[in-house]
Structure formats: C-alpha cells, structure tokens
C-alpha cells in the first residue's frame, strides 16, 4: 500500500472517522458499523477501499510512519547536535500527540493482535533505521550491529515514554513535552556513546 498516493474523499472520511472514534471507543469495541456511521458512507463503499477495521488502522499507521519519516528529513549537524536531537524529539512528540488515541490503542493491543503487531514493529523498525543511520553519521567509526541494537533500545524507550506520558499516571513522566529533556539526554548519550569508552581506554 502506498501511503502517499492521493486518497479519495471516501477513504479520507473513513480515516478521519476512525481517528475520531478512537478517542472515545476502545479498539476492541470499534466496529466497521460504527466507522461507516461516523464517516457517513455506505458499507459497500467502505469495503471497496478497506478489507477490515485493521486495514483502516494500517492506513492510519502508514500515514503516521510517513510523518515520522519526515521528522528525519534534515541531518543533525555536528556543530549543534543537541539542538538537532531536540528538534527531532519535538517533531516525534508532536506526531505522537496528534495520534495519541490511535497510538495508545495500538500500544495496548499489538501484543495480542498479529495485524497490529506487524504494523507496530514496522514503525519501531523504521525509527530504529533512522536512528541507526544518524548514529553512524555522528560516530564515524562504529560497529553497525552494536549500533543497531542501541538504536532499537532507544526507539522502544521513546515509545514507552510517550505512552506513559499520555496515560498521566506517573508523576515524573506526565506529559509528552515534560519528558523530552530526559529522552534528549539518553539519545545524546547513545549518539556520543563510544567517546566514553575511548576516553577511558585512552
């Protein structure tokens, strides 16, 4: 599926309706009937574009993954690494905030739903790719496989912070903006990591 091709009005209506419904309806209770009612389209039209509610979620996630990709459009510059990471994080947090209901629904359900799992692992993998490329860029000499696992750990950690922030149950991480300094610190630590070891050896 191409996430970037032009979508018909009916498709967009389905995506927007699903996005809206997820703010109040748990994923388990979301049905195609509710979606078509909210979108104001016929069942036949729905099934012309989507095979199931999971197909709609897949389309929403694909759209979100594109936005995520967009946050990595510019390279972080060596001259101002801190600023570069901060900009990335703000952009990622903004994408998360805009899609919070969808993301929480996925974060809470992907482990038991194969369709969601594939989607979600794909998004994390995309973030891992982007961070890996960035680390390789910043650290000139690094072992790519070690870097990839660090990038994956960072990607999952970010997923968790933004999720916990959105739940508002844990005082230290209570808001997507408030948690950014801590993520920035960890991200920079990963980016600059080997210097620590090099310095010790040297």
């Amino acid at each position: 599926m191409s996430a970037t091709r032009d979508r018909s009005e009916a498709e967009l209506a389905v995506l927007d309706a699903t996005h809206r419904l997820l703010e109040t309806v748990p994923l388990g209770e979301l049905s195609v009937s509710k979606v078509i009612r909210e979108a104001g389209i016929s069942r036949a039209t729905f099934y012309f574009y989507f095979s199931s509610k999971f197909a709609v979620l897949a389309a929403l996630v694909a759209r979100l993954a594109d936005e995520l990709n967009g946050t990595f459009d510019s390279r972080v510059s060596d001259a101002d690494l801190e600023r570069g990471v901060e900009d990335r994080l703000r952009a990622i947090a903004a994408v998360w905030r805009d899609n919070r209901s969808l993301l929480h629904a996925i974060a809470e359900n992907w482990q038991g739903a194969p369709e969601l799992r594939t989607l979600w692992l794909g998004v994390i993998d995309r973030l891992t790719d982007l961070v890996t490329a960035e680390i390789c860029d910043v650290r000139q000499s690094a072992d790519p496989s070690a870097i990839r696992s660090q990038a994956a750990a960072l990607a999952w950690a970010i997923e968790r912070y933004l999720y916990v922030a959105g739940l508002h149950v844990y005082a230290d991480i209570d808001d997507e903006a408030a948690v950014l300094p801590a993520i920035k610190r960890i991200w920079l630590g990963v980016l600059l990591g080997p210097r620590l070891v090099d310095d010790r050896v040297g």
Partner: protein
Amino acid sequence: VSAEDRLSATRRSDRPRVHGGDSDTEQAIFTATEELLSKLPLQDLSVAQIIERAGVSRATFYFYFSSKYAVVAGLLARVMDEIYEVMQPFIRRQGDTVAEEPLRESLTAAAEVWSTHRASLRAVMEHWHAVPELQTLWLDVVNRFASGLAADIDRERNAGLANGELDSRMLGSALIWGTERCFHVAGLGVDDDLPNEQAIVEPLLALWLGAIYGADAGGGSNGSTSKPKASRRSRS
C-alpha cells in the same frame, strides 16, 4: 472480564493482605499460575484453572487471593524484589570503582531473572494499564527503582564523577521505563534487534552509561573538549 473476576474485584478493598508467598499454599498457587501463564495469556486464564493445577480448593484460593490479578501482583512483587536484589552490585558499589562493570553485572543478573519469569512479567506489562491493582503495584515498583537510581546519580554528580543538569529523578525514571520496555520486548522475541533478554544487556549498558556519564552536548561534537567523566579507574 468474567463475572468471577468482577465479583472478586469488588472484594479487593477488604483484602489488604500482603502476600509474601511464605506459605506452601501460596507457593503452590504462584507456581501453578506461572506455569499456566507460560502457555496462555492472562485474559484467558481462570481461577478454576489455577486451583486445579495448584491442587487447592476454591475456598483456600480466595482465603489468600481476591482474584487472578492478585496472584499476578504477588508474583510481580516477588520478582521485582529479586531484580532489586541483583541490581545491588551497581547500587551498592564503592565510590572508587568504575560503574561499567558493576552495571554490566547487575543488568546481566536482571536479564536472567526477567527471562526466568518472563511469562508473569509479560502478563503484568500487558495488563497494568487496565487493571487498577496491577497498576498501583507496578508504578510503585518503577518508583522504587527510579528513586534508587536517582540517588545514585546524585551521589555520582556530587562526587564530580557524572555531569548533567537534568533532574536526576527524571533521568532515573526515564532509564527505568526504557529498560523495562526493552526487557519486555526482548522477552517477546518479536524484534530481531532485541532478540532476548541477555542480548540487550550491552545496548542497555550503552544507554545507561551515556545518559549518566555522557558529556553534556552543549557544542558536543566529535573532538569536543568536554570529557565524560566515567573514565576513572578503580584504585587497585
């Protein structure tokens, strides 16, 4: 949620008992539940299955536990106590030793405990957001680890060994949440980049050391003069 679970949930408040797992019966229930959780998800697990496997009566079960969630909460408390214990090499290390080795040792031991109790922890991770009694306990556990780590970060900073302006409590919390997430994902075995608990010790170590001891990046490109200060050696 079954009627039985709903019923027992309403009784939660009049069952303030803390389950240390110190009786044979509680131990049998814990063991049976862990075994069952390695085969089926928590939502499909019933008290009937637990008591059958544990060989105890329904009355005995409800004498000790208000619901299956109370059993999982008891398991969680015990496992996290164990992990807190194995983190001691890092937390209690002497000030003049390099943090890296004790931390590696602690994370390796934590990975071992996590993989041993993977199924129970998975049940907690997938349900705490929706089950109040798991949520309270889980957030307390995270808080406890975060406080311990924050105190350690403060100690290191006061000794001039770590730098950074960021609130130590915030940094500690972030590292703990990130670590629990990575262990959980590694335990699921669904991400090739984090294939199992032991395999993520090194990446987690990189995250922790970088976050605690890394240089502040104000202008911190390659060749910056700001030195990370974990570069001390033990006075051996």
